[in-house]
């Protein structure tokens, strides 16, 4: 029996107060996510229940109870407070998926500071722009990532504390750097929790747009209400579940549903911090008897590629419910999962800005393979006419996916960018930037992005950011970046380049350019293909016509080229 029940009943009787009551939250009271995810669970009698099962590469395994994570959160919070971190300071977490990442998340929130999680594969330029924008005061990182921080530290006057969570004493620490070992610290039993309220900022995730620098999406502690209820109803988390969210907390799924959702429900969750292999993943599910698995289409397609036979080598009978996020889940993947696991992956649609699942295939509801599902109760989701910005009532017609603002985990702004935030709303609707249709039963069907942002393996990449990085390479005169179709990642980054005089196109230069972007930004942003051109197509006013290049890659109609620049 699922937690959700019947869709129509839930919609009819819905109020966010359901979650408030279950969490015993009264409006105006203190609301602190760090406390709700650890202290409250202990107070509910689950102090000794397992909260986290961590496996690192090479068989490293650590297990933490809810009391352990409560104490760890206290200890980290206490340390941060001792060095002078105060409420609303931004504290960046720049770590692999090691336990300290998850535990620091709680510690930062407990003292009322704002968590800024960043993907540890980011190169120094990606790290720099995000730390500079947020005016981050402290960063908690690992020895292995210290070299990236050192390259940019001189340009970051606000960054006062560089905290190394796994410092090995053979490496000398430099200016502003300090070691903090959770293992070697005396656990702090009592920490005064900062009295954050519903609208106090909590998490700052960065996301990419078509133009400009990445935007810091500001969330508040009240997001808990939506993350709790969607975890319960959509992910169907139940008390005896062993849950595995494969997302990295550098991205919103890894915090909303990789920390806040499961732990606020007192659920045991697993983390696997190693590279991808089908064998390792299936073994992880088997060994930990995982019951609920929340993953991404790219990973599912990679597992499909590994074949059906390997699935039979493992006992995966513990799996009870499967869900997917990050990019549209193709129908083949849903059908394949029914064949090999005996149950479908349930697609979930949402964004960094929405903070919680917005449209989904619910447990117990008929899954239409390839469909995004239906809006969560309490969420008004529509497709808008792209010219009039009014809801389309006709079924099957393509429009812009939009939501009526007001759900608890809606972003409260882009950090220091009020104008971009305002531009996300038209006629009282929040515009997601995605397009879809709605069928006669109210199911949404994804069509594509409404802008040039590239969704690769569930990660959004800004073409502008990649183009800017490319221009810093000594051989590159001009660049244009678009999405290229990809069987596994849905889209990958492709760069079109013109060279400066004296440089000759060739495979070695292509590789050099790929690696240049990888180190500067990240492997996700690295062009997986480079095409050298004589000239980049532009409008007469000098704007790059990405649309033309995109159409070429996707085999689409080129459309109107009347504004194309002539020689």
């Amino acid at each position, binding site marked *: 029996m699922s937690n959700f029940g019947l869709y129509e009943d839930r919609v009819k009787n819905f109020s966010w107060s359901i979650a408030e009551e279950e969490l015993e939250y009264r409006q105006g009271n203190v609301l602190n996510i760090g406390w709700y995810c650890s202290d409250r669970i202990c107070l509910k009698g689950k102090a000794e229940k397992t909260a986290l099962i961590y496996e690192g590469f090479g068989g490293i395994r650590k297990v933490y109870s809810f009391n352990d994570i409560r104490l760890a959160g206290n200890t980290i919070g206490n340390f941060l407070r001792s060095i002078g971190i105060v409420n609303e300071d931004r504290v960046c977490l720049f770590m692999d998926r090691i336990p300290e990442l998850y535990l620091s998340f709680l510690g930062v929130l407990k003292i009322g500071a704002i968590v800024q999680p960043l993907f540890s594969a980011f190169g120094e330029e990606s790290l720099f722009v995000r730390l500079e924008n947020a005016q981050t005061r402290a960063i908690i990182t690992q020895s292995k990532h210290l070299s990236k921080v050192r390259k940019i530290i001189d340009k970051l006057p606000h960054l006062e504390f560089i905290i190394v969570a796994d410092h090995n004493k053979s490496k000398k620490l430099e200016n502003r750097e300090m070691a903090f070992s959770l293992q070697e610290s005396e656990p702090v039993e009592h920490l005064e929790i900062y009295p954050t309220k519903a609208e106090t900022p909590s998490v700052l995730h960065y996301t990419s747009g078509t133009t400009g620098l990445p935007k810091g999406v500001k969330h508040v502690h009240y997001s808990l209400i939506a993350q709790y209820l969607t975890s319960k109803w959509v992910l169907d988390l139940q008390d005896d579940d062993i849950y595995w969210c494969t997302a990295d907390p550098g991205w919103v799924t890894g915090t909303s549903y990789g920390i806040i959702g499961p732990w606020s429900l007192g659920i045991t969750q697993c983390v696997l911090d190693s590279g991808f292999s089908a064998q390792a993943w299936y073994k992880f599910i088997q060994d930990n008897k995982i019951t609920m698995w929340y993953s991404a289409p790219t990973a599912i397609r990679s597992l499909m590629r590994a074949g059906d036979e390997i699935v039979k080598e493992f006992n995966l009978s513990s799996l009870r419910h499967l869900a997917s996020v990050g990019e549209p889940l193709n129908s083949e993947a849903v059908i394949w999962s029914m064949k090999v696991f005996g149950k479908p992956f349930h697609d979930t649609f949402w964004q960094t800005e929405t903070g919680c699942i917005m449209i989904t295939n619910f447990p117990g509801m008929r899954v239409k393979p390839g469909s995004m599902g239906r809006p969560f109760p309490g969420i008004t989701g529509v497709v808008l006419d792209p010219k009039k910005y009014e809801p389309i009532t006709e079924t099957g017609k393509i429009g812009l996916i939009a939501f009526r603002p007001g759900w608890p985990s809606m972003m409260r702004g882009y950090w220091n960018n009020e104008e971009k935030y305002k531009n996300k709303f038209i006629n009282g609707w929040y515009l997601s930037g995605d397009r879809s249709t709605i069928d006669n039963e109210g199911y949404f069907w994804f069509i594509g992005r409404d802008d040039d942002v590239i969704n690769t393996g569930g990660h959004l990449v800004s073409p502008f950011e990649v183009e800017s990085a490319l221009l810093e390479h000594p051989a590159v005169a001009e660049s244009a970046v678009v999405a290229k179709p990809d069987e596994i990642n849905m889209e990958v980054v492709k760069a079109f380049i013109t060279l400066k005089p004296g440089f000759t196109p060739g495979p070695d230069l292509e590789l050099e350019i790929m690696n240049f972007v*990888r180190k500067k930004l990240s492997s996700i942003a690295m062009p997986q293909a480079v095409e050298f051109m004589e000239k980049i197509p532009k409008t007469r006013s000098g704007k790059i016509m990405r649309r033309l290049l995109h159409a070429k890659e996707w085999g689409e109609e080129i459309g109107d080229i009347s504004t194309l620049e002539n020689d």
Partner: protein
Amino acid sequence: MEDIKDLVRKYVISEYLDEGDEITYDTPLISSGIVDSFSMVSLLVFLENKFKIKIPPQKATPEAFDSVNKIVALVNEYINK
């Protein structure tokens, strides 16, 4: 044989490891997270450029790229074709 091994190992060290870090010919690369699935593409391009080969996409799997020795075995399959 040794030349290919050393070339691949040196390339992996120079491109994917921090200064001073080392690997052996059997160090796991993909499953350990040293090289992620996106970065694997640049490693593939390196192999194809360096050894003038074409490795079909279905053969460029995380398992086949999981150590220098495994990569060399894969390269050798195509080097004389």
